[in-house]
């Protein structure tokens, strides 16, 4: 390998990626939505929107609202269910040479285990991301994302049902991030991803009503980046399993920050909506950064924070 082409490949707890830049769940649909605009084969991995065992309608509109440097969303996990996903989207995704990670969620421990088992029986999926922290489905967040014993239970139950790499997505809880990261590692997670969106509210001052149909939602975008960075840094010090860092990444410089903080891979989320090719420009910029800093591999940069 020449000095001018640094090695961007990453092994994320068993997910072999050509480069460390993936697209985050809920911001890239199920693949076909952006396929005309982005060469899916170039992505490090594609994380599809949250799938539950049965189809789910989601929340009433308005479902998103733009705020300063951010987006509050309360989609409510609308999805076609595991069978619908396998029937309508998996054949499309299998045409591409890209790891497909399915974000899964349930209302009960049993539902989490069942959807994990069903998807694990399918051919062509690379890993499961466990959504225990979506702020928009009450059962999901209250029961699993911020309650450590429940988090352990759901993770253990899913672990029993799948041999696919398992990546729990952690809630942005400043006081408990290390405990959750360690619990994930102890329960057999292969990696962790963070952060999910941050619970947030926007108010229409003329009507004095919440803007969103679900009243509250999850804040994402550049507004949350410094918070996400701190959480990734803390989690990285607490565990040995790799971390997928995300939260407001819109440029290569943002991604480099997350990697220096301890992320082995990064995910592009909200930025996809305004610039669908962000993941590609981020990986190009990351490569240039590595060259400029005489680094032969991206791995050398992971957790390289000097302090």
């Amino acid at each position: 390998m020449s000095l001018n082409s640094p090695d961007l490949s990453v092994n994320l707890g068993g997910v072999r990626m050509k480069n460390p830049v993936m697209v985050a769940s809920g911001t890239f649909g199920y693949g076909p939505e952006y396929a005309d605009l982005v060469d899916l084969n170039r992505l490090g991995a594609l994380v599809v929107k949250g799938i539950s065992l049965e189809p789910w309608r989601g929340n009433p509109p308005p479902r998103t609202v733009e705020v300063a440097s951010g987006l509050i969303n309360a989609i409510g996990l609308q999805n076609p269910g595991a069978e619908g996903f396998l029937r309508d989207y998996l054949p499309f995704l299998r045409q591409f040479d890209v790891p497909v990670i399915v974000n899964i969620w349930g209302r009960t421990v049993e539902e989490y285990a069942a959807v994990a088992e069903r998807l694990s029986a399918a051919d062509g999926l690379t890993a499961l991301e466990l959504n225990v922290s979506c702020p928009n489905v009450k059962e999901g967040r209250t029961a699993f994302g911020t309650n450590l014993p429940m988090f352990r239970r759901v993770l253990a139950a899913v672990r029993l049902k799948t041999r696919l790499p398992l990546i729990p997505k952690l809630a942005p809880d400043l006081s408990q991030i290390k405990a959750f990261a360690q619990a994930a590692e102890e329960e057999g997670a292969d990696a962790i991803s963070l952060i999910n969106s941050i619970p947030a509210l926007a108010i229409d001052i003329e009507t004095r009503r919440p803007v969103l149909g679900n009243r509250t939602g999850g804040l994402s975008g550049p507004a949350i980046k410094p918070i996400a960075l701190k959480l990734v840094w803390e989690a990285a010090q607490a565990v040995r399993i790799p971390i997928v860092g995300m939260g407001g990444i819109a440029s290569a410089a943002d991604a480099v920050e997350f990697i220096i903080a301890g992320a082995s891979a990064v995910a592009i989320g909200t930025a996809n909506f305004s610039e669908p090719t962000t993941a590609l420009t981020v990986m190009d910029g990351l490569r240039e950064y590595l060259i400029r800093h005489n680094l032969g591999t991206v791995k050398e940069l992971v957790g390289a924070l000097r302090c």
Partner: protein
Amino acid sequence: MQLETVLILEHRDYGAGYRLLKVAAPGIAPQVQPGQFVHVRVPRLNDAVLRRPFSVFQAQADTLSILYKTVGRGTAALAALAAGQTVGLIGPLGHGFPLDGPAERVPVLVAGGYGMAALYLVAQRLPRQGMVFVGGCSAQDILGIEDFTALGWPAHIATEDGTRGVRGLVTDVLDAWLGEGRQSRTPEFFACGPNGMLQAVGDRAQAGGWTAWLSVDRHMGCGVGACLTCVVKCKAPDGDWVWVRSCKEGPVFECRQIQWEEES
């Protein structure tokens, strides 16, 4: 659908407080179907995380234009752009108006104010001549009539304050025309405007056993079907209902697809 950085050719007042933005979009413009939209990345709107969607008003050869009024941050930033600058587009997006209806149907366009922007290409490209009904609160909300009359399409106008055309709602004028029995042929509606107007047009179409294509306007996120922001409540085949993406399956729906009860 493609991403294209396009050159602004013309940016001028269009009347009634609206601005017309015309761009050279050799990739997107030739692909545009009536009723489709483009998703605009507004320059110098640095803290914005979303693009802004606009119906394609006119499209000819390699150029297309949109109409807009300054209503918020996005359109205010758009208004500051000048000819010679560039802007990023994704398009053409969505399912537009089908133009392949039976030749014996008379096209009836119904626009509420700015809704005419989405309807011009229907009139221009339909091989059959029809007529247009336009409504608004006041004379200043009525725009683009000349563009339709230039195509030879007669325009019926209604304003709620009576400052232009008939005093009342656009559906009042439409009802008068329907009631006069002038339509020796079957009407086919193409409508764009506020929800109340769309529902009223749909009600008339269903009562008469006619077809009505309605272009809905929903708050939009990604514009390509990924984020599920812009959903519309639609009837499901099994008699139940589902949330359907207005950016992908829409923005044009046949009136029988939409479930208006509970729509807010």
